[in-house]
C-alpha cells in the first residue's frame, strides 16, 4: 500500500510538472519580473546616484544612462528603440524613395543640407536681432556671439511618451552622439525644451510645455524678466509677473540665460494673452504662443556647445551691461525707489503731480544753506527758514486776523485759501 501510494505520488508529481509545464514557466517568468520590480522599488536611489547635471557628468566621464532610469524602463527602451527606429526609418525610407524618384537624388540631399544651413542661419539671425534690440555696442555683441551656441546636433523625433499629461518626446540621438541631460533643444523657430534622460542611442526631450518645465525669459522690448512654465493643460505661461501696463500682447519673449540651461537670447514665443490670475494674486497669467510648433516636431537641434567661459574682460563688460540694462533686480529694489525717504524731494514724491511743491523753487528748504539762518550749534537742519513773500496779504499774514469778538471759536478763517482737490 505504502509503495503504491508513493509511486502514485511520484506519478502525480511527474504528471503535475508535465501537465502544468507551460503555466509554471509563465508563473516563473512573472515571478522573476515581480522580484526584479520589487528590487527596483526597494532601492530607488541606486540608479539616481549617477551624476546629475551635464557638468557633473563631464567630470565623471561618460555615464551611459541618465538618472532615474529603472531596470524595466531600460530594458523596454533598449528593446523598443531598434524597433521604433526601424519602423520610423522604413516609413521615412518609403517616403524618401518616392521623393528621390520624383525629384532627383542629389537635389534631395542638397535640400537636406540646405535646410540644416537655413536652420543654423535662422538661429544666428535670431541672436543678431535680439542683440540689435538691446542696442548694445560692438564689444558686447562679440561677447554675445561668444556666449551663444557654438555647436548643435540635429535629431529626429521618434516617439512620444504616450501620456497626455507629460510632454516628453524621444529623440534618435543619445549619449554616443554627445548628448547630455540639461542640454537645450531648439528648432530654427525657437526653444522647444531640454534633454532629460539620455540613453546610448536615444534621449528624452522634455518639452517646454510640460508641467515640470521652466525657463528664465526676458520680454524683448520692455526688458522685464520673467519665468515661463509649462502647465498641466500644455499651455506655456509666465506666472511670476505682477500687472504692468507696459506688457503688451504680441511682445516677443526670449530666454534670459539666467537659468543655466537655455543660452541667452533664444526666441521662446510671443505673448498671446494677459489676464489677472485671481488665484495667484497679485500676479497675472501671461500665456505664450510658442515660436516653435510643439505639436508637430520632427527635426530638432540639440545645443551641445555653448562657450560658457568668456574672456575676463568680455565677462566684465557683459556684467556691466547686465547691471545697467537688464535690471536683474528684486521687485523690492524697484518699488523702494518710489517710496519717500528722508532725502526725497517733495516734488519728486510719486503722485506729486498736481499738488503744490514744498518750496517755491522746488528745492527742499534745508538744501540751500542760504535759506536757513541760525539754529542750534552742531545740528543740521536746525536753523530758521526764510519764507517766500506773498503777493498780497492772506490769512497767514500778520495782522489780518480779526479780533476775537468778531470770530466764532473753531471756525476756519473767512479768507480761505482755495482748497486743493482731494484725491479720493
Amino acid at each position: 500500500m505504502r509503495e503504491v501510494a508513493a509511486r502514485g505520488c511520484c506519478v502525480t508529481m511527474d504528471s503535475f510538472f508535465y501537465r502544468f509545464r507551460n503555466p509554471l514557466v509563465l508563473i516563473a517568468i512573472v515571478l522573476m519580473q515581480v522580484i526584479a520590480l520589487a528590487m527596483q522599488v526597494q532601492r530607488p536611489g541606486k540608479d539616481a546616484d549617477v551624476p546629475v547635471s551635464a557638468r557633473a557628468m563631464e567630470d565623471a566621464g561618460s555615464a551611459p544612462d541618465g538618472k532615474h532610469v529603472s531596470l524595466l524602463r531600460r530594458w523596454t527602451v533598449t528593446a523598443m528603440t531598434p524597433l521604433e527606429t526601424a519602423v520610423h526609418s522604413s516609413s521615412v525610407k518609403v517616403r524618401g524613395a518616392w521623393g528621390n524618384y520624383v525629384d532627383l537624388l542629389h537635389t534631395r540631399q542638397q535640400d537636406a543640407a540646405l535646410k540644416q544651413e537655413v536652420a543654423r542661419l535662422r538661429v544666428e539671425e535670431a541672436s543678431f536681432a535680439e542683440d540689435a534690440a538691446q542696442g548694445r555696442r560692438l564689444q558686447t555683441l562679440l561677447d554675445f556671439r561668444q556666449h551663444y551656441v557654438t555647436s548643435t546636433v540635429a535629431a529626429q523625433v521618434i516617439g512620444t511618451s504616450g501620456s497626455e499629461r507629460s510632454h516628453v518626446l524621444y529623440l534618435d540621438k543619445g549619449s554616443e552622439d554627445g548628448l547630455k541631460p540639461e542640454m537645450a533643444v531648439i528648432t530654427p523657430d525657437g526653444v522647444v525644451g531640454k534633454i532629460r534622460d539620455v540613453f546610448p542611442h536615444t534621449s528624452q526631450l522634455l518639452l517646454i510645455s510640460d508641467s515640470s518645465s521652466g525657463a528664465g525669459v526676458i520680454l524683448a522690448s520692455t526688458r522685464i524678466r520673467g519665468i515661463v512654465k509649462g502647465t498641466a493643460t500644455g499651455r506655456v505661461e509666465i506666472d511670476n509677473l505682477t500687472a504692468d501696463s507696459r506688457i503688451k500682447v504680441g511682445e516677443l519673449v526670449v530666454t534670459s540665460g539666467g537659468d543655466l540651461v537655455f543660452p541667452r537670447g533664444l526666441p521662446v514665443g510671443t505673448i498671446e494673452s494677459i489676464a489677472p490670475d485671481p488665484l495667484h494674486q497679485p500676479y497675472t497669467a501671461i500665456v505664450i504662443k510658442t515660436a516653435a510648433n510643439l505639436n508637430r516636431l520632427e527635426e530638432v537641434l540639440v545645443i551641445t556647445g555653448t562657450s560658457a567661459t568668456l574672456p575676463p574682460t568680455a565677462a566684465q563688460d557683459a556684467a556691466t551691461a547686465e547691471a545697467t540694462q537688464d535690471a536683474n533686480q528684486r521687485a523690492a529694489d524697484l518699488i523702494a525707489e518710489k517710496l519717500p525717504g528722508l532725502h526725497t524731494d517733495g516734488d519728486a514724491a510719486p503722485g506729486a503731480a498736481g499738488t503744490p511743491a514744498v518750496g517755491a523753487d522746488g528745492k527742499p528748504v534745508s538744501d540751500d544753506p542760504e535759506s536757513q539762518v541760525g539754529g542750534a550749534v552742531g545740528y543740521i537742519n536746525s536753523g530758521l527758514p526764510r519764507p517766500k513773500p506773498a503777493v498780497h496779504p492772506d490769512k497767514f499774514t500778520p495782522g489780518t486776523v480779526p479780533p476775537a469778538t468778531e470770530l466764532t471759536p473753531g471756525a476756519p478763517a473767512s479768507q480761505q485759501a482755495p482748497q486743493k482737490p482731494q484725491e479720493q
Partner: protein
Amino acid sequence: MDMGGIDRREKLSATKLHVSQYVVAAVLVVLGCWLWRLQILGADQYRVLAEQNRVRKVPVLAPRGKIFDRYGRILVDNYPSVTCFLVREQQKQLDTDLPLIAEGLHIPLEQIQATLRHFQYAPKYQPIPLKQDITPDEQAFIAAHRDDLPELETLDTERRLYPKDGFAAHLIGYVGEVSEADLNDERFAAYQPGDVVGKFGVEETYDGTLRGIDGSRDIIVNSHGKEVGQMGQELAVPGKDLHLTIDLDLQIAAERALEGKNGSIVAMDPHTGEILAMASRPAFDPNQFSVRLTSAYWKSLMDDKNHPMMNKAIQAQLPPGSTFKVVMTLAGLQENEAQDLHVACNGGATFYGHFFGCDKHHGSVDIHNALPYSCDTFYYTLANKLGIDKISSYAHSVGLGQKTGIDLPDEQAGVVPSQEWKLKTQHDKWYAGETISVGIGQGATQATPIQLARALSGIASGGVFVRPHVLMPGQISSEEQSTIDQEFPGSGVAHISITPENWQIITDDMANVLSPIGTAAAAHLDGIDLAGKTGTADIVAGRQKNSSDKSTLPHSWFVGMTPRRNPDIVVAVLWEHGYWGNYSAMLAAQVIDTYVTKQRKGSGNLKMEEVAVPKTEAPKTAGDVGAAPSAE
C-alpha cells in the same frame, strides 16, 4: 490495484471537494461581507478619507492694502518676494546636487552645507529656507531644473515695503507674525498661527481693514504630494487701501527738521484734528521687521537709550515746561485772577520759605508780557493765587492728563498733579509749595506732544478741541469707526467757553512770543502770523545746564500755530536735550513755512521772482501789513 487506488483517491477527493467547496463558499461570504461593509456601510467615510488624501487645501493670501498720504501719494507698498526652500522629503541623495544648487542660487557651497548641518536634526518634513528674496535669474534656475532638482521649492509672499530712513516709521508701524501671546487675546480670535498682523502704528489700528480676507484653493495632489489639478476655490478679498491725513510734503519737512536729533514733531489741523505730519526720532527701519528681524538689530534698538521704538509724538511723557503757561494764562484770565496781576520779577521769588528762581530779571510783568517773557516769577505768583485744584481742573479741561483718543496704539496719558492724584499715587497729602512749580509746567506735570498740540491749538481756537486722527474720513464704515473710537478712548472732541476778551489776550500773547521781546524771537518768520509758546523742561532739577554731556541738557519744547486765532495748523515740537525752547521753535518754523508756502503757492499767492533775493527787506513791509500788536 491501480483501479482500487484510483477509486480510493477519487472517493477521498470527493469528500475533500465538498469540504473545500464549503471553505471557498465561507471565504466568499466573508469577502462579500467585507465588500458590503467597505463599499456600502463605510462608503461616505472612506470617500472623505480618500478625498482628504487627494485634495489639499492651500491658502490664497490676500494682498494687504497699501497706504497713501492725503493726496494719494504712496507711503507703504507691497512687493512680491520669493523665498527658496530645500525640501528633504524625497529620499534622494542631496549631496550630488549641492554644487549645482550652489552655482544656480549663488550661495557658497560651504554655506549650504552649513545650513543643512544646522537643520539636520529638524523633522524631515520641515523645509529648509535656503535664500530669501531671490533674483529673477535664481528663480529661473529653479524653474528650469524643476524635474531634476525637485527638492528646490519656492514660496511667493507679498512683503510690506516701507519708506527708507525710518521715514514716518512710528506713524505707519510695521507688520509681523502674530505672536503666541496675541493668539490668546480675544482681539486676535480670528487669527491663525503664522498670520501676519499689524503690530504698531496705523498697521495695528487698521489691521482689520488693511488685511483683507484670505481665500483658499482645493488642489488635487498625487501620491508624491505634487499638484496635478484643482477642484474648488475661494477667492481672496484684497485688503483695502488707506489714505492717511498725512501731507507728505509736511512729513518730509518734519522728518528733515528732526534729522540727527532726538524728539518728535507733530502737525495737526486744529479744525478737524487731522494729523498732517508725525515724526519721531531716532527711528527704526520697519523693513527689518517685515522680513526676519535679526536679534542683533532688535538688541541695538532695545539698547539705544534714545528709545527708537517709542513714538514720541504720543508716548513721550515729559514735563511740558513753560508751554504749560498758556494753560495757566487761560486759568488766570477765566478766574479773573490774572487781569490785574502785576509782578516785579527780580530773578525769582520766595514762596513758603523756599526760593523759586527765574532765568532773568524781567522787572515789571503783567498778563500782556508774562507769556512772551515766559517769566517764571509771574506764573509762580499766579499758581499760588489759583491753587492746585483750579490749575488741575483747567489742565484737565484742555485735555492734559488724559489720552487724546488718537487712532494709534499705546498713547500715553501724561500726568496732571492734583490732591487726589498725589493721595492715590504717593499716599501723601498735597503741599501748597508744590503748586508753585506746577505753575511753570514742572514738578510732576507730564504731557505728550500730541496733547500739547491739541490743548494749545484748542485754546487758540477759542475753546474748541478736536480728536486727533490719522485716517482720512469716509474710508471705513460707521460701525468700524465707532469700534475704533471705543478702542481708543480719550478727551476727544470737547468745548469750553472762553470769553472773547480772554481769547484775544491769550492769542496775542502767544503771537508776541515770536515778537522781538519774546522767548522765540529768533524763530520769527517774516510775513507769517506765527504764534506759539516755548518750553524748556529740566530733566532732573539741579543738573548743570552747561555741561558738555548732552544727555543732561533740558528738553526743548515749542508749540506753534498760524494764524494766531482759529489756527489752520498747529505744530508741536519736542527736542529732547535740545536746550532752549527757541531751538525747537526754529524746527516748528520749518514745518509752518512749508505749510504756508504750499498754501500760498496753491492759491497763486507767491512772489516767484523774489526767490533769488530773499534778503531784501521789501517782503517784510509787504507782509506785515497790519503789524503785530506791540508789547506793552
